[in-house]
């Protein structure tokens, strides 16, 4: 028997949420949800873990701080110690207050861009990528839940019966 994928469409985020809770409580695994906006509270229901992007951003920002310290030390102290108004830069620490703005800006620069690039790569959302939402209405006002027979131990007909028991707007079943 061919594996089947169910694209269950709802016309309201709350209906999808209620359906997801009901199906998950019956041991059914919801593979994916496509929605036009973030549905708050859905992630723990369908088993999505919290993203670690914020940690990434912190690490990128720390890299930026380190690089800016290294850069200001090299440019202003090591390679050619500047003498400004009779106040030469012999050590980095003596001039550190003057470098704080650049250190801050560079940390923000690395933190923001590093995270943004990681975000786009992890999502696979890059220029020229094809869209993979099952129905164009999911970026407008419809909400689709993707459930496969592959992920669940139920037969296609049992699964369909349980899905139809929720407040479904439209159901598409495909072989894959």
């Amino acid at each position, binding site marked *: 028997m061919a594996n089947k994928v169910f694209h269950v469409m709802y016309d309201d985020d709350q209906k999808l949420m209620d359906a997801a809770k009901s199906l998950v409580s019956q041991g059914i695994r919801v593979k994916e949800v496509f929605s036009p906006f973030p*549905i708050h509270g859905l992630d723990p229901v369908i088993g999505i873990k919290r993203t670690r992007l914020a940690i990434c951003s912190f690490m990128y920002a720390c890299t930026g701080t380190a690089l800016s310290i290294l850069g200001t030390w090299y*440019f202003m102290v090591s390679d050619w110690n500047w003498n400004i108004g009779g106040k030469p830069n012999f050590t980095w620490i003596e001039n550190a207050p003057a470098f704080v703005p650049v250190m801050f800006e560079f940390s923000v620069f690395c933190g923001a861009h590093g995270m943004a690039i990681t975000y786009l790569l992890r999502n696979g959302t890059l220029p020229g990528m*094809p869209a993979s939402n099952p129905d164009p209405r999911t970026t407008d006002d419809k909400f689709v839940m993707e459930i496969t027979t592959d992920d669940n131990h139920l037969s296609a007909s049992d699964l369909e019966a349980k899905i139809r028991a929720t407040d479904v707007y439209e159901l598409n079943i495909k072989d894959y």
Partner: protein
Amino acid sequence: MFKESNLRKPLILGHKTYGDITNDIVNPIMGAAPKQWKIAITIAFIVALYGVGCIFYVVGVGIGSWGLNKTVGWAWDITNFVWWVGIGHAGTLISAVLLLFRQRWRMAINRSAEAMTIFAVIMAAVFPLLHMGRIWCAYWTLPLPNTLGSLWPNFNSALMWDVFAISTYFSVSLVFWYIGLIPDFASIRDKMTNHPMRKFYSILSFGWSGRAKHWTRFEEVSLVLAGIATPLVFSVHSIVSMDFATSIVPGWHTTIFPPYFVSGAVFSGFAMVQTLLLIMRKVMKLEAYINLRHIEYMNIVIIVTGSIVGVAYLTELFISWYSGVEYESYAFINRFSGPLAWSYWCMMTCNVISPQLFWFKKLRTSLSFTFFMSIIVNIGMWFERFVIIVTSIHRDYIPGAWGEFKATSIDIGLFIGTIGIFFTLFLLFSRYFPVLALNELKTILKTSGESYKKEGSH
């Protein structure tokens, strides 16, 4: 789910559904351009062309074409630079600071305010780049390995900090704006199933599909970017103010400058947002989304920041006397009674006195008065920078070196031209980009939409 009190007026008027929100934004993009838009962009484009002509002229003949002289070495160029950067600040404040404070009213205005930020910062960058004289050497401000010996930029200089601040601010704002735009481009893409522009939006939307995990990441990225853009926005204008404050010129050398500049920036930025949005909501028929509640909140921000600016003006005046330094005192006496006193009093009237009228609810909820005031505030804030810059340096320590500044036609052309370029870019944005954050507005429809609020009150 978040619950909003029924006492609060709705943010989305009328009986809107999720589909209506998409249609209200996408249909104008798919349809023919309105006549008013065509007229507006034609005028803006002509002014922009004049500006581009002036830019080429300055690059060709040099900044001798400006009215600068031995005494007044900084004038309209830096005035315009600070003015434009200041305008940009409202966009980041709305999208980042108000996001952190969970202010839902920002959702209708953040997209266009961020666009304004980006275009304003581009306009700002024109002036220091031109002031370098040799714009093709602009990359010398970056610490690049070079063949000129150990020649590195001076990281002790506030001007160098500015290079880092402005470039970080611009690029981070751009990324913040674009990441928010991606899901909305996808909405346009999916609406335009048989439209010749579909391919264009398909590329812009980066293949966004609205998966649950992607939305989780999206919200996290937005929050973290808001978190780091908030200190960024404060740092940028603080650093701009340090261009002056770290010098030893009387009238510039004051510790009050950073907070004073930041509040002035937000003040002028919100005024520009009002100018743009009051026109845009009318032309694009967005009255249901950008309504009186938004306008009133922005006017409240204007009165708060305007009052902070007013206090700063009086404080620096008091301190100049209290310091006992005669040069410092003279700088300020010269400001309000010297040959450029007219600009000082113009600044005082526009920035301190007239925004106080917003204490009257009737006035701050009047669209025509708000529009009028937004123009007044922008004029006032331009004069603030002019007063700080030109009146502080036109009379030096040696009376024999005292000078006057007279703007040339190129000075004026450049300033007016950047306004033309700015409006051209903004009009293009309002025509082809989703002017409201669709995905964010949909999240507040059930809590702040008029029909849902009515249902909830029964």
